[in-house]
């Protein structure tokens, strides 16, 4: 004869075992993710939603709000400076991403062997990344100043000088790109080093026995096996370039978007509208479009590269 207490205990026990191992794992996984998810929601999701809401208001920056519907988006459509900013942003990304990829990978290949010399070189290449972006911008601004900057003197001595790095619309953006690459390449070098270490040495040994040269080994072993790392590097640098993450600080200090808006990437124009002119609603509308553009670029790239995963059928 079983007592009521025994029955209840059995039920509780039965209830506990009803969750399969898969479900328990599922719950545990989400619980681990929960703190970060909450952080993202509060510090990213909510501001993004508020920004989206703000984009349909005209805001004067002093507490005055009036609903204007799609007016800010229409204004954007008709604003040549918005399109100029979009063009400069695209140009910046198109120049930055391949250069950063090539320099990051190149440096990683140069210093991948773990001897003392390479350890020192790795630290040197990574060092710029430790410096404040504002300091980087100020130092480079001084180095490339017309006539007397050390880089200006060097280029003049090589017979390719006589131009203004930051004062000529034809050179200002590429100068900003080169400074950005100089600042960022050490960071991407580290990521590539991690990717290179994941490639089994046996592949190279087998290839060498087969008589493959350095270029063939790089082309047929290194590059294909770096696919996930390459995906990550291109993805992150592209998002950073379009969002203007590092570009903003460098541009704001070095050119303020000039000369003649040649370096006014969208994020600089958005900043100017919001904080310079107090047009928070218009700035929010532009920021919303920038986010959508970023999502589209990310999705397309993800679809084209299958998220950097290896194609095991090949």
């Amino acid at each position, binding site marked *: 004869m079983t007592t009521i207490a025994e029955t209840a205990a059995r039920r509780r026990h039965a209830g506990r075992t009803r969750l399969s191992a898969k479900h328990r794992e599922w719950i545990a996984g989400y619980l681990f993710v929960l703190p970060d998810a909450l952080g993202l929601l509060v510090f990213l999701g909510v501001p993004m939603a508020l920004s989206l809401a703000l984009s349909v208001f005209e805001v004067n920056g002093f507490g005055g709000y009036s609903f204007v519907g799609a007016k800010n988006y229409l204004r954007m459509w008709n604003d040549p400076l918005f399109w100029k900013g979009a063009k400069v942003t695209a140009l910046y990304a198109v120049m930055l991403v391949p250069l950063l990829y090539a320099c990051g990978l190149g440096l990683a290949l140069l210093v991948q062997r773990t001897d003392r010399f390479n350890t020192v070189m790795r630290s040197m290449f990574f060092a710029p990344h430790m410096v404040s972006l504002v300091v980087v911008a100020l130092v480079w601004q001084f180095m490339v*100043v017309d006539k007397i900057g050390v880089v200006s003197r060097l280029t003049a001595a090589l017979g390719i000088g006589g131009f203004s790095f930051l004062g000529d*619309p034809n050179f200002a953006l590429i100068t900003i790109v080169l400074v950005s690459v100089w600042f960022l390449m050490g960071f991407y070098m580290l990521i590539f080093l991690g990717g290179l270490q994941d490639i089994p040495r046996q592949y190279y040994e087998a290839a060498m026995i087969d008589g493959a040269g350095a270029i063939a080994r790089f082309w047929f072993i290194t590059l294909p096996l770096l696919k996930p790392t390459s995906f990550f590097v291109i993805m992150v640098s592209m998002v950073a370039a379009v969002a203007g993450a590092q570009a903003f600080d460098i541009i704001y200090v070095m050119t303020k978007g000039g000369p*003649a808006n040649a370096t006014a990437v969208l994020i600089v124009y958005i900043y100017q509208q919001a904080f310079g*002119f107090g047009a928070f609603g218009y700035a929010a509308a532009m920021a919303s479009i920038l986010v959508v553009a970023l999502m589209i670029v990310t999705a397309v790239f993800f679809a084209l590269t299958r998220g950097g995963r290896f194609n095991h059928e090949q």
Partner: protein
Amino acid sequence: MSDKKKAFPTLTRRGLLKGGAAVAGGIVGLGGFPYINRLAVRAQETPLKFWQFYAPGGPVASQVEWFEKTVADWNDSHPQKIELEFIPNSEYISGPKLATAFASGEGPDIFIISPGDFLRYYNGGVLKDLTPFIDEATRADFPESVIANRMVDGKVFGIPMEVEPMAMYYSVKAFEEAGLNENDVPKTWEELLEVAKKLTTPERFGVMFETQPGYYQNFTWYPFLWQGGGEFQTADGKSSFDSPATVQALKFWQDAINSGVAPRQIMGAGGHDTIANLASGYVAMQNVGIWGISQLQSNAKDFQYGVFRLPTPPNGKYVTVGGGWAFVANAKGRNSDAAGEFCAWALASKEQGSIDRVATWCTKGKSDMPPRNSALKAGGEAFSSGMIGTFAKEIHPGTRAEPRVPPEVYKIISDAIQQTQLGGADPQATATAASQQLDAFLSSYQGAPIL
């Protein structure tokens, strides 16, 4: 073992709940404690915040000392205390600090603005009417040309602390090296470019105009527009930017760049920085304001320099622009009456202390022309001798106040200057396009008059 347990009691869920309840109860209970009530009273008496950008350790020590003394003197004699808050220049001028503070309802009680910012804050409804705090005689002490762009409908919304006319500075050493002397000081635009050419070397530019886009660049360009009779709007509020005078002014700055006598990129903090550009030897002549005197006096004592009035175009007349910052009070601040009273007490009171304060700022703090007639008299010898004397006698008489424009107008003019000066665009086509943009904006503008 048991001792260790006592020292580090295990945290159980029940214990945590108990503790949480106790803390919550404590917080609720504290509401009735007198200490909390005292905090509320103290909050009402907290000092008013006065934001400006003359930070301790800045380039000219006497400037921050003046601000500190002004606030200390007020605090010694008034119950409502004021506290200085230094905002870095890059955060203050066209930076996010003021914009975000006002957007979040946490704007300063007292702050300083230039004419370029006036309309934005006035149209935003945060500028306190300071007229009730200024008596009629003192109001008349401010020349109309100085106070007009801080007034709307006959009421004063900002009290200027300075007038800063623009001029040309030159390096005596550079002139001597080029075989020139003060008799060669150029009087026309053409002469300026010729002299600049003689002063240009492989390591130095002959003349410098501001190149970075911003309110300051527009400010420095206006005299060249006005000298040929140009304006950006007509008396009835329409664009008059498409004129020969505009084209001529845009072309003059473009010629200076294209001929290679002026740099496309400038050194240091910007075109207003005489130390990094003129005193360093990067340029031989620099278009800069009266504040250059105190900059050079404080940071390049041995540098020999001269000043001359802005050269004029053919058939043009001499005119320069006078900028300057003004004290304003936040109409939505915690004690806007006290804030307004402070602004008037500091700069626009009939008391001799107020007059002397203005004179001291303009002679010892930051070399400037005073915005009050009485302060000009109080400054006495200081305004009639030395380099400031040259400004007072030769340069200041042609001063016209810096225009106050909404951000949209600033941007249209800024883009026109940038496109022609550095972008190589045709001045006539640029002036026409900018004028059409101006007309489109002016036709729908609602706000205080653009001056």
